[in-house]
Structure formats: structure tokens, C-alpha cells
């Protein structure tokens, strides 16, 4: 019955590796560049280079491998699904297998594995970011990037604050769902069997208390913030200023270099 807490995909793990110490903004930009690289690459050699980079960071990040891959479990299904779709529906190349009217073509298999590789790289690299960056640092970085937009009237600080709060309450909500679910199971509720309609109906005893407590929490939080004179981003100073160091610029430069090499050599 620990279904919720076992979903650890991208859950921040405090640590002291190079990745942990980089400025979140630098990590963001580097990740963005890396994602571009993932889509630029179209040879297996290119992927080998990316794989070396990713595994190096993974091994030096101090994140236990078992924990890392357990967190990816939900993604395995997406990968399997992608692979099957391509194998059965992408046509081209030579026909490898004929099953009645359906055929499995060589190009489908090729493309299927290609897509799966891309998904792996995407998920692993983004998880590396979220696993080594606290949610607060992440939203700080986002707020920084959105700052130019505030001149256009976009409430950058408010959006960042909303994201911080939302991220902060995800574990709380999961804990609470688990608790309410157990409480209703103790009264004979069944969340696991029945057809779709019945299952949806069975969720009412879970969702109503969850909504009630979320609204109550939101109310309390708003009061607590107001009691401490919170009034949005205007003139607000920070406890932790983001401070970019030469190391951070270097990280971004290296990521840029990788793209340049990949684009230039056509890997």
C-alpha cells in the first residue's frame, strides 16, 4: 500500500556532487542544449557519445542506481508502447515477417529502437536535473528566466511562487491520499477491482476528502503568508541569491560545444 510514495521519478535527493553544486540556471540551459543534441543526433555513433556523457554524470551524481532506475519504472511502459507501435505500423525497408495482412518491416524496427533511445536519453537527462536540484532552486531558476516577461505584464514571480507551492505540496498530497485510501479500505472500500465506471465511482470517497483538505490547506497557507506580510514580488529580496560561478559558464559552454560538434560532423 505504498503505491504513491514508491513513485520517485525525479524526486530530489540532496547530495554534494558536481551536478548538485552547479547553478540551477546553468543546469537548465545545459539540459536544454543537451535535449537539442538528442534530437540532432542521427547516427548510433552520436548516441554513443551522448551515452558516455550521461553515464558519467549518472555515476558521479551520487544517486544510487537502484533508486534511479526504480524511479523510471513508469517510463518503461511508454518505451515498450512506442517500440510496439513502430514495429507494427511503420512501413518501409524490407518485409521481415508477414502475419496475415500485417507485416513487420525492417524500417519499423529501426525507427522503433531509435525512438526508444531518444526517450531514454530524454528521461535520464531530465531526471538527472530534477534529482540533483531542489524544487526551490528549480523555481528560482524559472523565475529568473521569466523575469524579462514581467515587463510584458506576465506575473513572473507569482507563477514561480505557485510552482514552488505546488511542488512543495505534492508529497503532502500523496501522503494524504494514501492515508485516506487506507482509511476507506478499512471500511471495506475497494479501489482495485470492478469496471471503469465502478472504479471511477469508488474514487468519490477518496477525492472528496482530498479536495476538502486541499482547500483547507490552501486557506491556512494564504493566511499564514498574509500574516507575514507577503504581497507578491514587488521589492521582495531573497534569502538565497543565485550566484553563477565560472564553473557554471563552463558547463553551459561545454554543452554548447557538444551540439556544435554533433551538428558540424553530422553524427
Amino acid at each position, binding site marked *: 500500500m505504498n503505491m504513491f510514495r514508491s513513485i520517485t521519478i525525479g524526486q530530489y535527493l540532496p547530495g554534494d556532487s558536481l551536478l548538485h553544486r552547479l547553478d540551477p540556471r546553468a543546469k537548465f540551459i545545459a539540459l536544454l542544449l543537451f535535449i537539442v543534441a538528442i534530437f540532432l543526433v542521427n547516427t548510433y555513433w552520436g548516441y554513443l557519445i551522448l551515452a558516455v556523457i550521461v553515464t558519467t554524470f549518472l555515476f558521479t551524481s551520487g544517486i544510487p542506481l537502484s533508486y534511479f532506475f526504480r524511479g523510471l519504472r513508469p517510463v518503461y511502459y511508454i518505451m515498450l508502447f512506442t517500440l510496439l507501435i513502430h514495429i507494427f505500423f511503420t512501413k518501409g525497408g524490407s518485409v521481415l515477417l508477414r502475419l496475415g495482412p500485417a507485416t513487420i518491416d525492417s524500417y519499423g524496427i529501426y525507427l522503433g529502437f531509435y525512438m526508444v533511445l531518444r526517450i531514454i536519453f530524454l528521461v535520464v537527462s531530465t531526471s538527472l536535473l530534477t534529482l540533483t536540484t531542489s524544487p526551490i532552486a528549480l523555481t528560482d531558476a524559472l523565475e529568473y528566466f521569466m523575469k524579462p516577461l514581467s515587463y510584458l505584464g506576465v506575473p513572473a514571480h507569482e507563477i514561480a511562487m505557485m510552482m514552488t507551492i505546488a511542488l512543495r505540496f505534492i508529497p503532502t498530497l500523496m501522503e494524504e491520499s494514501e492515508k485516506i485510501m487506507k*482509511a476507506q479500505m478499512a471500511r471495506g472500500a475497494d479501489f482495485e477491482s470492478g469496471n471503469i465506471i465502478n472504479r471511477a465511482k469508488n474514487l468519490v470517497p477518496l477525492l472528496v476528502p482530498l479536495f476538502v483538505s486541499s482547500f483547507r490547506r490552501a486557506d491556512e497557507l494564504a493566511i499564514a503568508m498574509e500574516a507575514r506580510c507577503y504581497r507578491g514580488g514587488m521589492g521582495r529580496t531573497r534569502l538565497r541569491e543565485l550566484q553563477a560561478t565560472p564553473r557554471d559558464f563552463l558547463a553551459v559552454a561545454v554543452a554548447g560545444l557538444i551540439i556544435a560538434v554533433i551538428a558540424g560532423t553530422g553524427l
Partner: protein
Amino acid sequence: MQIKLENVSHTYMPGTPFETRALIDINLTIEQGEYLAIIGQTGSGKSTLVQHLNGLLKPTSGRILIDGKEVDKTAYREIRRRVGLIFQFPEQQLFAETVFEDVAFGPKNLGLPEAEVRRRVENAMLLVGLDPQELGDRSPFTLSGGQMRRIAMAGVLAMEPEVLILDEPAAGLDPRGKKEILDQIDRLHREEGLTVVLVSHSMEDVASRAKHLLVLVDGRQKMYGTPAEVFRDGQELAEMGLGLPQMCLLMHKLRAAGKDVPTDIFTVEDARDAILKMLGVPQT
């Protein structure tokens, strides 16, 4: 029914950096008619332990026997019917439009006929001291916190369990509300013959009520016995960060001062009698 735990351990999220060993090697037998109090500081594993008693959590190692038979998957439904568990802050689980429907949730899940559901709901509400006629049609969300807690308790009692487990039923209530709830539990034990397991972090609340006490410290079972046995050694309990009940402490102090008084005294009345006896005052 008898519930027996053999070397039960529970680890949350094993194999991750968040691994927590919440229970370590618990051995415990809960007999029919027992009134057991589980005491421990916050985080000592009390809630984890009671969730094993109705199959909501499975032991990481060790086993749980009910009437001598090991619990397996197929039996969970049956066990949850016979063992009612009232969670900490149960008022947070209310969801239905009316009080009646909320209390009826459990019996309906058991597939009982309409008339029987009605009988059980009314009975359960009376047991917790609420008037079914007056409150049945109200929305549970319009009631006071104390009333909501009683409704949640009625929701479990309406399943007519043989064993009633309550996780900190008095938490967050004022002294009077606390006493009322605890007295009601005593009555359920005495008059309805329910086996009761009561979780608490307050010695005061349970010392005079329970038949046996189990003291948990960091997931381990540190002491087990009747209140008199557990409170015999005040020093040890104090070292675990758990105080003695006030009157018991008084008796220990008197003894330390060389007076001849018993130490298994938990209520003011008993303390008065013991002191009068020590002073040699004849009692009426």
C-alpha cells in the same frame, strides 16, 4: 478472535535512500477481550503497527496469525470486516453528503440489505453518543470537529467489528472531549465486549483503562505488561522519554521518601485512598 504477531518487522521504502525501519521484531498476542494500549513517542511506529493488524500493511518480515492461521491475500476483506481501524484524525476521511450515508459506507460495502444497514447506522451513532434522528440528514462538513470525529468512529463501528483499533482517538480534543471519547471506548469494551487496541502517546490517558501496555521505542518493543508492571520502574520509562502518570509519579516519590505506599496507582481517587491508608486514617 486472537491476533498474533511473530517477529514482525516493517521497513518503508526498502532499498531507497528514504528507507525507514519503522518496526523491528515485534512479538505480541492480542487475545479476545483484551484492552491493549500501545504507547510511544511520535515516530516510534505505533501507527505502522496497528495497520498490520487489519492487513493494510504487510510485514516486511515475520508473520501475522489470526486465530492461529496465517493471513493471506484472500482473507483481507474478511479481516477488515472483523477488525475495525479508526485512524488518527478520522474526521478527515468523511466524504458523503449526509451523516447517514457516511456512516453507511462500511455496511454498504459489506453488501448488507437496506434495513440492516439502517439498523447498524443508527446503532453505531447511538454508541458514540450521537442522535441519528437529529444529525442523520445533516452534512458532515457542517458539524464541529468533535462531532465529526464521532461520526467517523461510528462509520467503523457500523461494520460491527470484533476488534476495535483506535489510533490516537483523543488527539486534539479538549480535556472534556478527550474524557468523553475515552469513556465511550471503555464502555464499548465493557458492554459490547469489543477487543480494544488503543494507540496513545499519553500515559495518563491509558494507565487506568488498559489491561496491558506495550511501550514502543524507535520501532522496538521496549516493555510489555499490565500497567502495574510497566509503571513499577519509573526510572526506565523516564529514560525513554515517557513520563509516568501523575499519581503514579506521586507514589514513587512518596516511596522514595520512605513511605509505604503501592506504586500501581493511576487515579486521584486511588491515590487518596492509598495516602489515607498510609496515614492510618480510618476510611468510610
